[in-house]
């Protein structure tokens, strides 16, 4: 009886096991088989090489240099708790991180995937760790490519830098299939040309064992390197511009400035400098907290690209706009003579010229050459703020240029409507809201509420030089894919035309020519530098920080050359510069001297 009962029991129990087995292997089989596959088959990303950035002559401005990082596969570490703790302590010691931090990093992700612990090892560290690797199961040294920039203090503001994707980038680029932790351009051309430079990552499906070691590769998709980008920048000219600007700043005890050189025929930017610069390589190699806060807290704001994002009053460099408006609107002719008194009295308010004596009767060209403020007060008053603003916008003022970099600022063109919109209270009679004649006449000499950027200034002077065409400034000359095939070349783009006759523009240019040929003043710098004063220019010393006398100033110089067939236009900006003829103009002349020698050498075929 009991034997039969035992037999029944055995059959029942084994039958029960069979039922559970059937459920596991048939009903849940597919899910569990998927989990087994997920255990054993991993997709490894094969990173695409980021495209290299060259100057217009093929000089590389960045390299993908190798760097070693220490990575650990958590599943590969010893299972035994004590051995694991010993290894954890050793890893913490090597990476100089707190043990808790290392443990948290390792616990955070997929235990079968590599966790980078120390992203950039020095050569010595790499060698030292390599020796100890056999005692560190699960740990490995992985070689990666890292961006290393050439001369970051010279090219840094143009090239920018890359960094690991963050939440903000993900929001911006998410649709393009970016993965967390991927490297993306953050600022400069690296960000502006991200889609060209990025390339396409490949992958490999590898089979790994329970220790995380790769057993075999099942399938691969090779990565596609990013495109090679040839900038319109001329590396030598960029370097010379940076040196001239730096030397000029040092000479005058200034710390910040910017300069943009472009080709007025095409809008190609040949040089774009903002000082102070900063070491962009710090960012790609993992910047320390100390370095970062010293950059952030530096009062000269080295991270600010003044050439595209610094907004300042243009001062007297704006007078060509006022002149163009006056001529084109028929308020004056090239021959009209106006007085240049030491001051103008408008409704009881006194507006001064820079000279405390009368400069006599003069036409518009001479007014530009002598930069007579009171002449242009009168012209501005005749034209009116709304029309003046129209001409300013036509020259590209108040417009964020679409250049291949993020963070371009527009500047500001004011008029009576703008001022009213600034008012919180719609009280049209309050001084804060109502545009007054004083606003108009100071607008005429590039003050008032007017703001511009060094890039906008260069585009503006280029438009004066090329007969009124506002070019889209570009940093891109040529794009080639990994196989060297040309996939995109430059097409000059005109974004607007100044509504002024050729004759009127010529009258304005004539004033700019006279300005740089004025004896005892501008001409001196050209003669000293041995550069023919063949071109047109204008200086400007712009007041900022309120209204009144004895305000701090910025110094400007804009220039184009040669006079007959302009092929270069530039703007120079010296932050807190006090006398534009002495501080800004010599920098521009210095750049022109290099340009003449350099271009001469290129044309002679010796470069």
């Amino acid at each position: 009886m009991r034997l039969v009962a035992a037999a029944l029991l055995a059959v029942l129990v084994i039958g029960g096991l069979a039922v559970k087995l059937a459920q596991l292997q048939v009903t849940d089989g597919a899910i569990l088989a998927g989990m087994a596959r997920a255990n054993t088959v991993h997709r490894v990303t094969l990173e695409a090489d980021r495209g290299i950035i060259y100057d217009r002559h093929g000089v590389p401005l960045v390299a993908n240099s190798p760097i070693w990082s220490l990575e650990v596969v958590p599943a590969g570490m010893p299972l035994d708790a004590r051995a694991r703790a010993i290894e954890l302590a050793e890893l913490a010691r090597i990476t100089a991180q707190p043990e808790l931090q290392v443990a948290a990093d390792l616990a955070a992700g997929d235990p079968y995937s590599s966790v980078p612990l120390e992203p950039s090892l020095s050569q010595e560290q790499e060698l030292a760790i390599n020796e100890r690797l056999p005692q560190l199961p699960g740990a490995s040294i992985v070689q990666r490519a890292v961006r290393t920039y050439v001369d970051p203090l010279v090219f840094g503001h143009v090239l920018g830098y890359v960094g690991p994707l963050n939440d903000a980038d993900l929001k911006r680029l998410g649709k393009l299939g970016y993965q967390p932790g991927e490297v993306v351009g953050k600022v400069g051309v690296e960000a502006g040309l991200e889609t060209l430079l990025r390339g396409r990552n490949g992958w490999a499906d590898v089979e790994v064992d329970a220790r995380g070691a790769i057993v075999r590769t099942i399938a691969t998709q090779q990565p596609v390197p990013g495109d090679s980008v040839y900038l319109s920048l001329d590396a030598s000219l960029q370097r010379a511009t940076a040196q001239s600007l730096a030397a000029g700043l040092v000479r005058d005890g200034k710390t910040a400035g910017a300069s943009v050189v472009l080709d007025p025929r095409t809008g190609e930017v040949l040089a774009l400098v903002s000082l102070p610069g900063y070491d962009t390589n710090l960012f790609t190699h993992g910047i320390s907290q100390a370095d970062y806060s010293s950059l952030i807290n530096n009062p000269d704001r080295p991270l600010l690209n003044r050439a595209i994002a610094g907004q300042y009053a243009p001062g007297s460099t704006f007078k060509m706009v006022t002149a163009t408006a006056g001529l084109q609107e028929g308020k004056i002719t090239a021959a009209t003579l106006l007085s240049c008194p030491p001051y103008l009295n408008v409704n009881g308010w006194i507006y001064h010229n820079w000279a405390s004596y009368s400069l006599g009767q003069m036409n518009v060209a001479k007014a530009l050459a002598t930069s007579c403020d009171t002449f242009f007060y009168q012209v501005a008053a005749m034209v009116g703020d709304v029309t003046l603003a129209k001409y300013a916008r036509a020259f590209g003022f108040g417009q964020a240029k679409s250049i291949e970099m993020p963070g371009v600022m527009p500047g500001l063109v004011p008029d009576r409507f703008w001022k009213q919109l600034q008012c919180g209270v719609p009280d049209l009679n309050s001084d804060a809201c109502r545009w007054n004649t004083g606003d108009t006449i100071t607008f005429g000499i590039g003050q008032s509420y007017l703001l511009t950027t060094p890039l906008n200034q260069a585009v503006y002077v280029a438009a004066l030089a090329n007969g009124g065409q506002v070019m889209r400034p570009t940093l891109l000359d040529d794009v080639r894919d990994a196989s060297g095939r040309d996939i995109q070349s430059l097409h000059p783009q005109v974004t607007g035309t100044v509504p002024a006759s050729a004759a009127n523009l010529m009258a304005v240019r004539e004033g700019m020519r006279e300005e740089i040929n004025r004896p005892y003043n501008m001409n001196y710098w050209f003669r000293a530098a041995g550069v023919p004063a063949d071109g047109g220019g204008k200086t400007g010393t712009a007041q900022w920080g309120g209204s009144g006398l004895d305000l701090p100033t910025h110094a400007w110089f804009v220039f184009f050359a040669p006079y007959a067939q302009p092929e270069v236009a530039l703007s120079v900006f010296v932050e807190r510069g006090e006398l534009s003829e002495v501080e800004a103009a010599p920098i521009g002349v210095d750049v022109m001297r290099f340009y003449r020698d350099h271009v001469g050498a290129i044309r002679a075929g010796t470069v």
Partner: protein
Amino acid sequence: MTTIAAWRRLDHLQLLLIGMLAALGLMTVYSAQADWGRQLLWLLLGVCAYIAAAAFDYRRLRALAPGLYAGMILILLAVHLVGHSALGARRWLSVAGFPLEPSELSKLLLVVILAAYLSRSESVSWRSFGLTLLLVAPGAGLILTQPDLGTTIVFLAVLFGMLFLARARAWQLFSLVFAAGVALPLLPYLLHGYQRRRLEIFLDPNQDPLGAGYNLLQARIAVGAGGLFGQGWLHGLQGQLGFVPERATDFVFAIFAEEFGLLGSLVLLAVFGLLLIRLLRAAAVAPDRFGELLAGGVFVMILVQVVENVGMNIGLLPIAGIPLPLISYGGSATITTLAALGLVQSVVLRRREVVLGDGALGTITRRAQA
């Protein structure tokens, strides 16, 4: 009795089933990348033990029972005194350079001792019930404190099963069940930390998938990944790549199930089931009560190991270190199991039978009344 006559009287089906299990076991151990040559050696040694046990007149064991009991207590004590540790438990003795796991041997010794003791009378008095418990307690205590929860479970199961087969009274059996019911809530306090953890993990395997729950989870994944037909011998992903822990011993069934699928697993369970029925049949034809209880005890011993091992591999029972008989890698267990089956064969050989008639279902035999 001549050799040929003895051969004729043997349980041939049992031999065949043992051969199948040994072959499947060896294949799986090979697939689990354990030392299959060594396992083959254990099997050969086990076959020697099997033949010796079958040839040996099991009835003489009765007289030896007190000595065997003393020997069992001694080797278990020896483990505590001079044993080697592995994975936090002291379970091993070194005998002539070979590692020996006395708790494996003690399973068989317990069966012999209980069979000897319980066969002294036709029924179980309260007095002998109490003495039986006292008899088992020291050995069970020594094994539990090694600690070896798995073998302790086998011990208690053998005790219960043999009492049942010895026709213990319902109240006696119920009191054991009741005692277990009372002891269960105390279990967490009696268990070691890791054993308690295993129990918690069994109740919720996903709470620590890389730590304590790892074994259970990975074994379940391996079994499930086998599907209906299996991934093929030597082709189980989980097993071959080392995701299944203890893959040649405790979790060898997971390896088998992954590679041979549901069909293979059902075949394996069927083989075990048939073997178990053959053991009960041996008990039925045994010439005396000692032989009946001996065969019945071996039945219980193998049944509980198969159920617990397969059960923990498929997540039905909590994890306890119990080998799958004749499949798991291990010398002590393999030799002990084969010796136990040999003893059952010895019982079969010495049966006295009255032929009731040759029917279509085979020869129906009945144990002669003593």
